[in-house]
C-alpha cells in the first residue's frame, strides 16, 4: 500500500474496532468513545454482544481443533486486544513449540499485545492492515516458516473489507502464500436468517461505525476456494463443532455470522 511507511495514526478520540470488541467481551481496555459506539451498536443489534462472544468461543474451539490436527503455526489477522483465552495461550498450552503471529491495524491494540506477549517466545505482533498481505507476509516470515503448514485466522475481519477492495483477492493472496496442508479460518457477519429490522439496523450501523459488509453464505464459502472445508462446513458460528457439554443453541442464526475452517488441498 502507498502509505506503507506512514505510521498508522494513534487517535484515541475515535473508536477502534479492537477496543469495541474488547468491551463486548467484558474487558476494560476501552475508552468512553469505544463504549459509546458499542452501546449504539448494541441498541440497534441486540445480539451483537452474543455474536462477538460466540465468535471468541468459536475461535477457542477452532484453535484446539487445529492444534489437535498438528498445526503449530498461527497467523491471526485482526487479532484485536488480547483477552482471556487468546490464540497463543490455547496453542502454547497444547503444544509448547507453537508459533503465533498477531496482526492488527490499531496501534493501541498492537502495543497492548506486545505488552502481554513480552517475554513469550515464538510470538510476534505486526501493525498492518489486513489488506496489506504483502507486508503481513514479509513481517510474519521472520517468525513463521511458510514451507510448513500455517493456520491463517480471519476471525471477524473479512467483513471489514468492502467489496471495492476485493476481499477475495486478499484471501487468495494468503492462500497462495501457504503450502498445502495449511488451514484457513473465517468467521464473517451475514444477513442470512436475520429478521428485516436487524438487517436495517446493521445497515444503519454502517453509517456510524466501522463499516461492515454483510455477505451471504455462498460468497463466504467462495473464499475457501482451494480449501476443503472441515465438518460441518460453513455454518452459523454456534453450530461449528459445539462443546457437547454446553446446552444446544436453539437459534444459532441469531448471531448473524458464519464460521468455517478449511484445509488447503
Amino acid at each position: 500500500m502507498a502509505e506503507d511507511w506512514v505510521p498508522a495514526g494513534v487517535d484515541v478520540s475515535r473508536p477502534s474496532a479492537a477496543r469495541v470488541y474488547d468491551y463486548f467481551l467484558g474487558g476494560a481496555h476501552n475508552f468512553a468513545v469505544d463504549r459509546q459506539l458499542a452501546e449504539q451498536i448494541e441498541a440497534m443489534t441486540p445480539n451483537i454482544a452474543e455474536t462477538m462472544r460466540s465468535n471468541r468461543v468459536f475461535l477457542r474451539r477452532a484453535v484446539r481443533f487445529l492444534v489437535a490436527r498438528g498445526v503449530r503455526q498461527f497467523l491471526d489477522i485482526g487479532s484485536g486486544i488480547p483477552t482471556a483465552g487468546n490464540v497463543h495461550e490455547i496453542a502454547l498450552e497444547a503444544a509448547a513449540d507453537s508459533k503465533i503471529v498477531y496482526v492488527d491495524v490499531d496501534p493501541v491494540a498492537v502495543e497492548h499485545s506486545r505488552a502481554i506477549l513480552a517475554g513469550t517466545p515464538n510470538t510476534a505482533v505486526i501493525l498492518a492492515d489486513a489488506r496489506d498481505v504483502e507486508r503481513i507476509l514479509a513481517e510474519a516470515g521472520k517468525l513463521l516458516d511458510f514451507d510448513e503448514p500455517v493456520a491463517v485466522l480471519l476471525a471477524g475481519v473479512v467483513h471489514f473489507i468492502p467489496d471495492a477492495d476485493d476481499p477475495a483477492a486478499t484471501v487468495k493472496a494468503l492462500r497462495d502464500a501457504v503450502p498445502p496442508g495449511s488451514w484457513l479460518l473465517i468467521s464473517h457477519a451475514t444477513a442470512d436468517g436475520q429478521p428485516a429490522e436487524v438487517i436495517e439496523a446493521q445497515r444503519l450501523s454502517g453509517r456510524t461505525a466501522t463499516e461492515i459488509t454483510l455477505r451471504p453464505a455462498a460468497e463466504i464459502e467462495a473464499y475457501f476456494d482451494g480449501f476443503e472445508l472441515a465438518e460441518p462446513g460453513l455454518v452459523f458460528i454456534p453450530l461449528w463443532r459445539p462443546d457437547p457439554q454446553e446446552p444446544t443453541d436453539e437459534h444459532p442464526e441469531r448471531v448473524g455470522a458464519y464460521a468455517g475452517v478449511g484445509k488447503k488441498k
Partner: protein
Amino acid sequence: MSFVELWRRQLVAAGFVPLDAGQLDELLSGLAGRLRAGDSGEVVGAALVEAHLTDPAMLAATVEVIDDPRVAAQVAAGYAQAIRAATMADQEELNQAVLRALRASEARLRAVFDNAAIGIGVSAMDGRIVQVNQAFADLLGYTREQMCHLLVPGLTHPEDPRDMWRMYEGVINGDVDHVRMEKAYYRKDGGEIWTDLTVSLIRDDEGRPEFTIAMVQDITDRRRLKKRLEHQATHDPLTGLPNRTKIASDLVRIFRDNASVGVCYLDLDGFKRINDTLGHQVGDELLAAVAKRLERSTNHVAGRMGGDEFVVLVEDPADMRKLAGSLLRELSRPYVIRKHRLRISASIGVVESEVAATSPQELMKAADLTLYAAKSDGRGRFVMYDSERDARQAARYALAAEMPDALDRREFTLVYQPLVSLQDRELRGVEALVRWDHPRLGRIGPDAFIPLAEETGVILPLGRWVLEEACAQAAEWAKEFPGRRVAMSVNMTVSQAHDPGLLADVDGILLRTGWDPALLVLELTESAVMDPEGTASLHGLAERGIRIAIDDFGTGYSNLAYLRRLPVHVLKLAGPFVEGLREDGESDSVDERIVETIIRLAHAIGISVTAEAVETAPQEATLRRLGCDTGQGWLFSRPLSSSEVTELLVNSLSSSSADV
C-alpha cells in the same frame, strides 16, 4: 443437583462465560471446596473476576446460589474489589499501550522530519522559526539552532515574487491555507539558492491559525537548466540575438509598459549573393558580425527574425530617423570575414506608433511592408512608414490573396487584339490578353494583377489557364474558318519560363486543344529571354515549332548579341519607339533611325518585326516604308471579345470571297 452443578448452570444461563465447560467445572469445584473449607467469600469473588467472569450478571448468579447471606456478601465485596482493581489495571495497561503507540508514532514522524530530503520548517505566527530539520538548515548553510534565531520576514530576496509577502500575510491571517511559489534564499555564506516553497497553515482545534509549516525543495539546478532551455528557445543560436519568439513576447511587453513604440525592420541587400558566391560559412559569419554591430550600435532590443532579417524594437522612440540612419551607416562599414573584405548595405522599414493605435501584429506587418518599400525604392536606404502606401500595398496583397479563388470561379477572361500585315492589313494573328472580372472592382487589366500573380506564384496556374483557353479558342476558329491561318500569341512571364513543368504543360495543352504549334507564338520580355535559367525551355519550345517573340523590345536591357544565339522569331517593338514616328516628310527623327536599324538587323538574322501601339496612319505608313512586318494597335483594332473576333473573321471571309 450438586452445588457446583447448580452454580455452573446459573452462570452459563446468566451470560458470557469465556471458559469452556471443563475449565468452568474445574474452577467452580475448586472455589466450592474453598468455601467449604471456610475460606472468606472475598477470595471466591476475586477468583471469578480473575477468570474473566466480569459480567455483573455472573455475580448475581453466584450470590443467588449461595444460601448464607454473610458469605454471599463477602463474595460480592471480593468481586467488587477485584473488578475495580482489574478495571484499573486494564485502563492502566491501555494507557501505557496508547503512550507507547504514540511514542512509536512520534518517533516515526520525528525520523521522517529529521531525515526528510526536503527542508521542513515550523514557524510561529509572529514569524519566529521554531523548528527546522537538517535538510532545511543545510540548504541555507546554517545549523538548526542558528536557524531558530531567524525570522521568516528576514528571509527576503530581491527576486521574491511581487505578491509573495501579501500571500504570506494571507496565510498568517488565515485567509488561505496553502501558498506555493518559487523563491530564492541567500545562504549564510552569501550564495544563492532557488527553492520550490510551500507554506501551509496549521490551525488549532478552534480553527485559529496556530503555526505554519514551510517545505522547501532545492530547485537551483532545475531552474538553471530551465533558464538555459528558455534562452535556447528564445534566442538565435547563430547570432545569440533574441529570436522571432522572443521579439514577439518583447513586443507584447513593450505594448503593455509603454505609450509608443518604434520598429526598424531591416534586411541585408544581396545577402543571397554572398551566400552563393562565398559559401554559407562566410554568410553565417557575416550574419554574426552584423548582429554584433546591431547590438553595439544600439541600446534597444535587437533580434533576428530569420534569414538575413533583423529588427530593432524601440520603447517610446525619440527619433527613429536618426536611429535608422545610424544603423545604415554602421552596417555599411566594411566587414572582414576570413580573408574577404565585404561591404553590404541594408534596407530598413521604419514604423513608429502610439501603442494604443495598433497591435504588435499590425506593427510588424507595417514594418515588413515598409521594408519591402525600401527594397523596391532601390535598397541601401530606410523608408518611413506611410499609411497611404501601406493601404495601397495592403490592397494589392488582398488582391493577390483573392486570385486563386478567382481562378476557380472563372473570373478571368481573355480578349484578343488583332495583329495585321502592314502590307495589306490582312489579319495575321491575335494576341490573347487576360482580364479579371472582379466581382467588386469590375474589370481589371493585367498590369494590376500579373505582377502580383508573379510574386505569389499564382501565375503558374493562371498562365496554364490562359494558354489552354487561347489555344482552344484558336482551334475553334481554325475549325470554323479552315484555310485562315491566324496565329495565337500568348504572353509568358519569367517564372512561367522557369517553371520546370512548362514543356510538359505546353505539350498537354497542344494535345488537348489540337492547336498547331506552328501557329502559336509565346511572347516573353527581354529579361526573361536573356535569363540563362530559361534557355533550355526556349529551345524546347522552339523544337516543337512554337515561335518565340520578344515583347516590348527596346525598353529593357537590349542586348542584340543574344538574338543570334537564342531561338527568337519575332521582335515586338515597344510602344515608345512607335510613338516617336512622325509623318513621312519628317522621317529623320532619331526614333525612326533606331526603328529602321532594328528592323534591318532583325531581318538580317531572319527575325520578323511587329510594331506595337500603332495609333496613327502616318505611323503605319512609316512602319510600312521601313519594312516592318506586322502591326498591332488602336489604328487597326482594339482588343476584341472572342465573338467579335469571330464576327471579324466572318466579315473578312465574305469580303475575301467578294474579292474572288
